[in-house]
């Protein structure tokens, strides 16, 4: 089954993405938990706003980092994992 890039990701209610200066990185905060995101996950996470669909996120990152091979696949994969972990909803 191929991934539908017209879906719009949003953080699950109660999940908050934010920058933590003390950890010098982005984290995802949720009830009594916290996950430190790596740099690429943080870049993708920063574009999740409930407005942009997956295609728009890919286009935006492609503009910022032109010529990165398999960028689209990586972003799709992030979405799949984040949905499986119930961090985001895709609608």
């Amino acid at each position, binding site marked *: 089954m191929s991934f539908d890039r017209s879906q719009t990701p949003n953080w699950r209610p109660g999940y908050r993405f934010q920058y933590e200066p003390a950890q010098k990185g982005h984290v995802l905060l949720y*009830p009594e938990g916290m996950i430190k995101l790596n740099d690429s996950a943080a870049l993708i996470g920063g574009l999740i706003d409930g407005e942009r669909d997956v295609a728009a996120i890919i286009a935006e990152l492609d503009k910022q980092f032109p010529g990165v091979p398999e960028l689209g696949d990586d972003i799709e994969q992030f979405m799949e994992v984040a949905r499986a972990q119930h961090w985001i909803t895709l609608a």
Partner: protein
Amino acid sequence: MHSTGSPLPEKPAVGLPLWLLAELTYRCPLQCPYCSNPLDFAEQGKELSTEQWFKVFREAREMGAAQLGFSGGEPLVRQDLAELIGEARRLGFYTNLITSGIGLTEQKISDFKKAGLDHIQISFQASDEQVNNLLAGSKKAFAQKLEMARAVKAHGYPMVLNFVTHRHNIDKIDRIIELCIALEADFVELATCQFYGWAQLNRVGLLPTREQLVRAERITNEYRAKLEAEGNPCKLIFVTPDYYEERPKGCMNGWGSIFLTVTPDGTALPCHGARQLPVQFPNVRDHSMQHIWYDSFGFNRFRGYDWMPEPCRSCDEKEKDFGGCRCQAFMLTGDASNADPVCSKSEHHGVILKAREDAEHATQTIEQLAFRNERNSRLIAKG
């Protein structure tokens, strides 16, 4: 090589206090016999003021604290709770309210939302109304909790339901889980009570048998598989009592490593159970959080590995479990630097074996447990 075995690992760098637990008050309308509050809670000092808490939040946040739990006692008893939530959220904390649900109203749920509260955790005592009321020492408690759990969801909060399990309710785990799913909980903590504070006093009447535990875990796993197959995001977290393990838990991820608790009177602790230890702990009225975390005697007392006697000192598992829980070592062996007796390498492991044995023959009913109330607290503190 010297005779004590392998050389000690280098002193690890002190981590950030990522988690701050604000125990706002020891006041509570309930009387749970497994309460983790100190036995002499009725004799503790004056509560911190709103301004004093603001200072604690500000300093901890600057040092990297990101998760903030409001607990107690019952935090709803504090009249300034909405103000405290508002300030914490403004500083960038993820704010968690840990409540019994008693004293919660729709109005408060909505006021807290406006103040920026991120999440509410309601603790239950059992799925069965009668057992629940008996344990909490209040008849209306259960109906109130159900209503509030529904209201929490209706206001768009994520919800964690916490069930403290023990020998009197663990056999009903299927009903407990069904109830949580029906209430659309996002996370369910099924935590066998840990034996500190009041629970330790009541241990024989609370510790489930191994058979009870194995059954409960099996049923929980069946529900997990079912939820996953349905794509239901509800997550079941099962916490076993370490009395049935051969190695202790890596308590608090190591002493003074990521957790910082501030008690109602301002005493700062590396773990909410640590107050009972014969260790001098700093108070936020006298010191900055910076000093407390990095420099105080109390927070450095069991950091790293240098303090360890044998068998932990030369053990190759010490980086995994840090020798276990200091409070448990103190309660059960009389010396807080001993190996946690849960460990089968501890010379005191027999205490744990005895407790397991006792669990097979215990006959205490719920009515015979010591309920956490002021009267019992004063009696015990004087005794």
